[in-house]
């Protein structure tokens, strides 16, 4: 056993942390949150230049990382700084699916993602699917050399910025069957594709996407017909590692802000951190945070394991981190008092990132059920 990061990952962690603590201040972030784009093209370009996007892809895919621990290191730092830029959507989900499933032609797009010149979005969830990954009602019907997509996609994060959407659609089978789901690489300006964009509570933007007879060449298919589910499940697992690690980083910051404030804020003639009731709550949070880090390590270390073992650790981490996240977000606000309720104070953003991460790829209950299913037999 060795719980040290490799030298390469330590260097990446250091340079990313330094870059973000210099550049990604509360003021910069709050301006981004109010902006029309929802994130900064400038920061994005610099993250690409630093090689952070490349770290999310394997060497065979044109990157130099891509393993669970690469994702965990990068996203913990993003979480620590409260970054809202769509690395999850453009790189892990969009780029990752193209890299894994794409034809030689399609894979050329990965290079653009790593260079920071192309954004992507995964349009998979639907208004009725909740977190149920195989639930796809959007249809794909092939007519000669064309495929026609019809359906609705819900809360497609980063859709407006994306040059291409990766859209899941069902070629055969019932709405919740794993077999029959295909992935399509669709230019965001495709005829018949419309979107209604909106900001997200915790930063970034998403859109409701409607597909009305979107007609594509069969070459737009990503991977084999009807066989998209395993790739989706693998990327959902990678996204879960990223989200859990991001939440861990955000919790570290929330705790640091809270610890500092307890020393500074005076009431009843002393720092409120002098009150034992508050000290004990901080101690409990630190215990939980330590557990959360272990769960993230378990998940990251099993990302490339066989699917059952992988998903067992993923669901364990997501469930634990969701529970701890709620506790840390709520208690950090409570221990601060009113100041933490204000948008201008840094904690507000971190509390929102922590809690709202639970709404992507399954909440605590969803992952508890997954875990029960995977461990019952």
């Amino acid at each position: 056993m060795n719980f040290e990061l490799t030298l390469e990952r330590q260097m990446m962690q250091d340079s990313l942390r330094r870059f973000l603590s210099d550049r990604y201040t509360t003021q910069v972030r709050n301006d981004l949150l109010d902006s029309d784009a929802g994130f900064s093209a400038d920061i994005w370009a610099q993250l690409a230049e630093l090689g952070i996007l490349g770290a999310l892809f394997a060497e065979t895919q044109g990157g130099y990382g891509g393993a669970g621990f690469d994702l965990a290191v990068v996203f913990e730092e993003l979480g620590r700084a409260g970054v809202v830029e769509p690395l999850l959507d453009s790189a892990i989900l969009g780029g990752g699916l193209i890299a894994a499933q794409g034809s030689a032609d399609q894979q050329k797009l990965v290079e653009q993602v790593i260079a920071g010149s192309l954004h992507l979005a995964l349009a998979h969830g639907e208004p009725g699917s909740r977190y149920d990954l195989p639930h796809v009602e959007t249809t794909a019907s092939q007519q000669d050399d064309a495929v026609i997509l019809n359906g609705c996609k819900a809360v497609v994060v980063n859709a407006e910025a994306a040059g291409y959407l990766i859209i899941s659609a069902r070629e055969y089978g019932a709405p919740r069957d794993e077999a029959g789901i295909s992935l399509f690489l669709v230019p965001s300006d495709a005829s018949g594709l419309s979107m209604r964009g909106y900001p997200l509570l915790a930063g970034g933007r998403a859109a409701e996407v409607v597909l009305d007879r979107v007609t594509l060449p069969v070459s737009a298919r990503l991977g084999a017909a009807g066989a998209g589910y395993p790739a989706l499940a693998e990327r959902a697992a990678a996204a879960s590692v990223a989200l859990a690690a991001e939440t861990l980083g955000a919790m570290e910051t929330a705790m640091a802000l809270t610890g500092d404030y307890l020393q500074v804020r005076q009431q009843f003639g002393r720092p409120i951190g002098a009150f034992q009731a508050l000290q004990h709550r901080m101690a409990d949070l630190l215990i939980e945070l330590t557990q959360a880090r272990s769960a993230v390590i378990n998940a990251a270390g099993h990302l490339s394991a066989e699917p059952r073992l992988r998903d067992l650790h993923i669901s364990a981490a997501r469930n634990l981190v969701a529970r701890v996240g709620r506790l840390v977000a709520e208690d950090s606000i409570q221990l601060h008092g009113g100041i933490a309720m204000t948008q201008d104070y840094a904690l507000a953003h971190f509390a929102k990132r922590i809690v709202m991460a639970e709404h992507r790829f399954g909440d605590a209950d969803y992952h508890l059920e997954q875990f029960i299913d995977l461990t019952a037999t």
Partner: protein
Amino acid sequence: MDLSFSAEEQTFRAELRLFLADKLPPEMADAVRLGRGLSKQDHQGWHAILNAQGWLAPNWPKEFGGCEWGAVQRHIFEEECARAHAPRIVPFGLSMLAPVLQKFGSKAQQDHYLPRILSGEDWWCQGYSEPGAGSDLASLTTKALRDGDHYVVNGQKTWTTLGQHANWIFCLVRTDPTVKQQAGISFLLIDMDSPGIEVRPIILLDGSDEVNEVWFSDVRVPVENLVGEENKGWTYAKYLLTHERTNIAGVGFSQAGLAAVKRLARSQQHRGRPLIENPHFAARVAQVEIDLMALSTTNLRIVSAAAKGQAPGVESSMLKVKGTQVRQEINDLARRAAGVYAMPFASEAVQGSNEAPIGPDGTAAVAAQYFNNRKLSIFGGSNEIQRNIIAKVKLGGGG
């Protein structure tokens, strides 16, 4: 012991339901149900409707134009109003200032201010907290110095809810800095139109702008605006806190919130079945409902005892802690129930707009409300302060 409602109480409930069905504007109820922001006009409109019926001041004595209802009647009123998604009664004038004026104000103050609260002519806000005086309220530093027939007020108040609508503010101010903190505080009524007052909005983490900072620089306040005696303000403030927190448990809000969670969970699909049928989610809902059933009775027990003249002290602290825990848990359930549709920032829902919200009915504001209602366990004496009170009284032999 008898847990049933009397015939009169049941008649009262039926009468209330008819009134609400008849008089509560549907668009107002929709705005409350969907968590959209209410305008000043909405609040004033609802107050006027209640006032016309004589029901705006359930807890006021009849001599001042109130209902003088007993505990059970008020409970029924709160329950039915919440059930019908009526706007809450804005409490600052009606249930915070008015009882203080009725008990400690001069006849002239009672005659002048109380009718204007009922008529809606005055909108009051509360000037208690300061940046440096939150849980430790008695350390407040806003000064009022006597200058002839006036006090000259300097300082800053914060967390002033709906202060942007108010034309009057009741303030705790320091009139004697030389004595023990609690002994140098006075209770002052200040016209918000006075020169030297500035109101600045505070944007909260859910994007709402309901609270404000209020700055005072050399604001001149006539001495007749002092309530009771100079330097006795802390006594009046404590009276307000212990006597007029009848709805502190928020049982009606929780009941309405739980019903909304169930509606949402029936409409949301989870793995091809309604979410409400999912055992994990159903267990969470049941757990809160069990707590809420007991809380409702706890609330009635305490409010009934108060009606017989036993001033609730430590009990209102218990109601505050458990009541806010239950409400916050319900907010959390609503957030969970909304699934991915908790993610959109419902600026329309917060600010009010004609644009259709994103996602299914009832999901737009749940996450914003979840974050906004973290305030419940912070304001009005944080839950930590309430626990201190409970521990001091029940364990310390003091109180």
